[in-house]
């Protein structure tokens, strides 16, 4: 553990500290990202995407087990897929979105766990295969091992329950903002029960697929960096079929699905 500066212990389980970043940390961080980059993209070149991708992440995470991340894309050509990588988390790839024809990947918001001071990277893959990246440094600590503040049974109550909210009514071929909420504790295997000295077994969401009628909005591959009870804000272009379908599977192979009508403007 690094030397802690100012730390809040009074209120909650999550600690936030602020201290200077040392130079060797800096080079370590760069090396770490190089490793991750190579394992994800091999020899492909990842270009600086500043100006095309923007990552809105808090400089200091007040609740490390629930850190909001906002990704904005202004690519001229379609974005095929998107990676959110938390370099120093135990499983760095927090999310990999593959977009379908009904997607409008202008803006994605989600909530993640951040375990320690880390760089967070977003990499967008354009239709022609170009890879663009941007990064932010986030100060957080303990987000992965932070206890849930309730028993495992309580945390699992209503697991798989889903809600989809739309911002207003949809007009065919015009993008609509949607919010997907899923009840799931997303146990990452790092939360310990003190009496038994046993870790709560990992049980986490692995995939979320969203379609509008026959058209894919996105496939999301995710894992233990996703915050519990995940909420994802996204946009899609309704086809007019009026049915949004969500499929969720977790690491225990449980599967939940929900189909909701897209509220359409009647003209």
């Amino acid at each position, binding site marked *: *553990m690094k030397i*802690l500066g*100012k*730390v*809040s*212990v*009074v*209120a*909650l*389980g999550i*600690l936030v500290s602020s201290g200077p970043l040392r130079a060797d940390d800096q080079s370590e961080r760069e090396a770490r990202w190089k490793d991750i980059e190579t394992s994800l993209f091999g020899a492909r070149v990842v270009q600086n995407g500043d100006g095309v991708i923007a990552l*809105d992440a*808090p400089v200091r995470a*007040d*609740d490390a087990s*629930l850190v*909001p991340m*906002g990704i904005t894309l202004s690519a001229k050509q379609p974005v095929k897929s998107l990676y959110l990588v938390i370099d120093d988390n135990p499983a760095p790839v927090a999310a990999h979105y593959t977009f379908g024809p009904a997607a409008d990947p202008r803006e994605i*918001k989600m*909530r993640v766990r951040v375990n320690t001071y880390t760089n967070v990277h977003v990499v967008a893959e354009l239709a022609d295969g170009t890879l663009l990246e941007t990064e932010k440094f986030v100060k957080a600590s*303990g987000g992965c*091992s*932070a*206890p*849930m*503040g*309730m*028993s495992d049974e309580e945390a699992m109550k209503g697991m798989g329950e889903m*809600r989809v*909210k739309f*911002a207003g009514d949809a007009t065919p071929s015009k993008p609509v*903002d949607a*919010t997907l*909420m899923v*009840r799931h504790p997303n146990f990452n295997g790092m*939360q*310990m*029960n*003190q*009496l038994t000295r046993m870790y709560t077994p990992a049980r986490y969401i692995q995939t979320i697929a969203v379609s509008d009628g026959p058209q894919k909005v996105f496939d999301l591959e995710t894992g233990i960096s996703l915050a519990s*009870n995940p*909420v994802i*804000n996204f946009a899609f272009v309704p086809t007019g079929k009026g049915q949004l379908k969500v499929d969720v599977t977790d690491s225990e192979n449980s599967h939940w699905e929900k189909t909701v009508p897209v509220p359409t403007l009647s003209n």
Partner: protein
Amino acid sequence: MVAVKQWVENMRLDRRKALFGTFCLCCLPTIGRTAAFKVEEVAPGVFIRRGVDEDATPQNRDAIANIGFIVGRDSVLVTDSGGSLGDGLWLRETIKATTAKPIKYVVLSHIHPDHIFGAAAFVPDDPVFIGHAKLRAALETRGEFYRDKLSEIIGVDQVGPLVRPTLEIADGGEVDLGGRIIGFKAHGPAHTMCDLSMLDRQSGLLLPADLLFVSRIPALDGSLLGWLKELETLKAMGAAKAVPGHGAVCVDFARAASDLTRYLTVLRDGVRTQIKQDGSLQQAIKTVGAAERSNWLLFDDYNVRNVTQAYKELEWE
């Protein structure tokens, strides 16, 4: 139980070290601040020490909560034990310097570190440790985590072991200090999931611990709607004066409760509005509660966290 007994043994063996070594108050680098600490008699026989309005640091030894004791005809009850072993030892010395009566009860008002880590200092007195029926489970999931984190700040020797309740209150209860009855109420999810409040029937003084914050920004770690509800329960008890968990040691209860209710209501209404307007968590964090900024100390350190907690709770409404 075994763990506690074992620790008592160790404590006895280590007593010299405990009192003259690592934990010796005069050797701690905090003598200035420690010397400044004192208890105030807020009602006859009720002594409270004002916690500092800071977060835990090596200098303040996490002595940030209001802690103290109540003296009855036969025995003493510790209202909350302090934020570290050092803080608890300081309180114990203060009690011994005030009265020769035995320390029979030590209250663990809720799970937060600044209220429970002083408890180990009282193990040699073999008191009844009183807590909410849900405190034990909370200690199981969070206790060690808090201990590690606090150790990183003030050192593991200063933190001491966790102490579990030996008398669990599921709804109400009382203890008798000898002609002085202290009533307990176990609350539903509010500030935390395991808040215990106390009423000293003799003085009519209410001791709601962290269900009442004064000056220092409230920290939400249980349920926002629940806290608003439990504040009504407390108001119905009709106490005129109260000892908050943080802030001035004795306040006019109605007034302090209305300040807290106002902040929690701003939080609730602001977050609900954001959710209704499809404002994201990011948006809520940036806007909700701003009007309350000048009313509370440490606002910037906790408001965002409170908004996040509230959002998480209310988005499923």
